[in-house]
């Protein structure tokens, strides 16, 4: 709980900065568009139609779509104009949320303007107003309460949806929810939900006050609402002012081990005097591209993942060759600095309940292939799309009746409870031992080695101070300790935070 409170200034500040920017930008675009739609009836249908379609896209998908879009765009501008921008973090979140905010503002503005008594519009012309004067002096003031109601709806939507910007690398109150979900820390999840709800409610009440101010033409209410909004926004943004200095951005993927290693790296960098910030819960491909484009500065990846996914190598020359070729490829292709292996391997490994594996006589993937047509397999969100899975299918001819994807947290429980027969597990996960699962052998070496390796962005590849701070981590963590640390975070009783698990590793 104290940990949660300690993060609040950063998360809340980022959340408010993002939401307020999106709402302001949204209004800046939507209000003039709505005026055009109001004056030109033919434009109204298409305008509201497009905004409605945007609204039907799930928030998470909309946010996710902007990342590759911006990535392509920044590659283009870099080639043509010689400069790029950050495709991860604030920008994709801002653009997606801006789009999301548009429908209620558009709809209410058009409805508010169209609902004005025609007799008043004739009177406005009759007293000698130009169309523009009629709009600004009569129509907009009269529609203001309805327009404000639209802005209010948009604000609540945006503040809620902003919690989904965590996976595209933008810090928000969603960080509580996503990291809480990964580590089964329900206090975190609840904390994030409540914080976002309280923020949304506060903004909603203040905008309601402004709406009433417009409706009742009460200057006092408008002033109070503006002052309240200014206090909430300024108060939330205040803690961010100090963090404006350049920081080293630590990235993590979306599972416990990554959060623990992220905390470990953070401790080391802060001890060495670096200011740090985090991009948590990123997907495998997203985080690698982010590192290559300096949106993330340091993280731990796994050699097999880079070998198969980034380098797209189908061959398997053996552990040492993989590491040396990967190191060379990273430097040559991306300018990424490879610091070294952390000391343990987190491989994809197939696991079954021991009793079931023994009853069926399964000890290798070749054995499994004989039974797979009647079996159900579970994996994380990525696994079935990855080249490793294709390699396994090719090497052993496995083909399952059903395949299901799970949050890594629930994967082990699923196989233990019999929801699935076999899972694509992670070898460093403490729950393999906890549930007493049997690992299935891979005699044909279809799966590459997955040494955890420390990588540093091109921007900091020559930063000796940073590299020196990272080097003590080389070979520092063995598999047993990593499994123990992972279990500390995963287990249902006596649960620890990733920070506490990181401290445990530091003590080893």
């Amino acid at each position, binding site marked *: 709980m104290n940990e949660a409170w300690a993060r609040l200034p950063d998360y809340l500040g980022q959340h408010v900065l993002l939401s307020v920017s999106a709402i302001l930008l949204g209004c800046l675009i939507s209000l003039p568009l709505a005026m055009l739609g109001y004056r030109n009836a033919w434009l109204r249908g298409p305008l509201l139609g497009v905004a409605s379609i945007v609204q039907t896209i799930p928030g998470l998908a909309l946010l996710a779509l902007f990342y590759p879009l911006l990535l392509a765009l920044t590659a283009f501008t870099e080639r043509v104009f010689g400069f790029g921008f950050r495709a991860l973090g604030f920008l994709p979140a801002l653009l997606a949320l801006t789009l999301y905010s548009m429908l209620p503002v558009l709809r209410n503005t058009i409805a508010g303007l169209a609902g004005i008594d025609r*007799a*008043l519009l*004739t*009177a*406005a*012309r*009759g*007293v*000698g*107003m*130009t169309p523009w*004067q009629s709009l600004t*002096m*009569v129509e907009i*003031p*009269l529609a203001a309460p309805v327009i404000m109601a639209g802005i209010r709806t948009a604000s609540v939507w945006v503040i809620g949806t902003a919690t989904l910007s965590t996976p595209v690398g933008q810090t928000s109150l969603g960080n509580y929810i996503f990291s809480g979900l990964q580590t089964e820390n329900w206090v975190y999840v609840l904390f994030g939900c409540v914080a976002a709800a309280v923020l949304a409610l506060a903004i909603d009440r203040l905008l309601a006050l402004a709406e009433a101010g417009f409706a009742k*033409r009460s200057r006092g209410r408008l002033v109070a609402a503006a002052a309240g909004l200014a206090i909430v926004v300024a108060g939330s943004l205040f803690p961010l002012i100090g963090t404006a200095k350049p920081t080293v951005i630590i990235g993590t993927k979306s599972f416990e081990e990554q959060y623990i290693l992220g905390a470990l790296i953070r401790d080391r960098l802060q001890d060495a005097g670096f200011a740090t910030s985090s991009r948590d819960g990123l997907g495998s491909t997203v985080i690698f591209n982010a590192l290559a484009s300096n949106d993330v500065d340091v993280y731990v990846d796994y050699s097999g993942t880079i070998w198969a996914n980034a380098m797209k190598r189908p061959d398997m020359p053996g552990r040492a060759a993989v590491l040396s070729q990967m190191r060379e490829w990273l430097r040559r292709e991306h300018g990424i600095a490879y610091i070294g292996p952390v000391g343990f391997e987190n491989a994809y490994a197939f696991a079954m309940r021991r009793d079931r594996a023994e009853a069926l006589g399964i000890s290798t993937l070749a054995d499994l292939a004989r039974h797979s047509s009647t079996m159900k397999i579970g994996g994380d969100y990525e696994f079935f799309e990855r080249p490793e899975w294709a390699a396994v299918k090719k090497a052993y001819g496995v083909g399952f009746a059903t395949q299901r994807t799970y949050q890594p947290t629930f994967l082990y429980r699923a196989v233990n409870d019999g929801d699935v027969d076999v899972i694509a597990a992670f070898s460093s996960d403490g729950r393999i031992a906890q549930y007493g699962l049997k690992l299935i052998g891979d005699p044909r070496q279809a799966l590459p080695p997955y040494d955890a390796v420390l990588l540093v962005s091109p921007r900091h590849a020559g930063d000796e101070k940073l590299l020196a701070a990272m080097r003590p981590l080389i070979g520092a963590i063995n598999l047993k300790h990593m499994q123990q640390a992972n279990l500390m975070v995963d287990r249902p009783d006596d649960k620890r935070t990733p920070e506490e698990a990181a401290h445990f590793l530091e003590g080893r």
Partner: protein
Amino acid sequence: MVGIMEAIAVEHLTKRHGDIVAVDDVSFAVADCEFFVLIGESGSGKTTTLHLINRLSEPSSGRVLVDGEDILSGDAVTLRRRIGFVFQEVGLFPHLTVAENVAITPKLLGWRETDIAARVTELLELVRLDPKIYRGRFPRELSGGQRQRVGLARALAARPRIMLMDEPFAALDPLTRDELAADYRDIHARLKLTTIMVTHDMTEAFLLADRVAVMCEGRIVQIATPQELIASPADAIVRELVDTPRRRARALAEAMRAQDIQA
């Protein structure tokens, strides 16, 4: 009226909405300082005619001259700022105070704030609303009669010489209506205004007008002084219109005589 220049001349004015002819070849001239009333049933084209005179609507054919100049040759907005217009629905802006409503046209014309403030006071006094009490009130805080007085003040604000009034008193109770009509007739004379008023109430027309134009189905049936209209109605329609107030007056007179006999 001979020899006085025409303030407004309407020549062969026609307005079509698709197949419907709202105003059909209407011509009349209104002299300077004249009080001219357009009368007719609903849908007879009188309001449309009024709208054509300050270009709230554009004619299909024909033309309107104001002070000898074709109104289509100038800018519509400038024209409307020169002409006062009083609406049947009053059309006060609900988000503005009485003073702000009255000040609209001078403000659009770019008058100085101090001049506007003085003008508002002067106008509220003219329409017999105490400026101290009513300046800061909103339209919703006024009675129907008070609202129409503000509407009148707003139309007069930029010192127009021409006033167009679209059934200005129709929505008011009879007592308020008579009082306001009498007040306006007085203002019309005092400010030397040229007024065209639309009404469907012949009694009102007789009490206010110098001349009356009777409209029916988009056309003008007869233009005459009230006396001429009573003496020699042009056709059955005009006679019917004229007879209504006469019948009412006769009935009223009989009722009053009976009252006198009883007393």
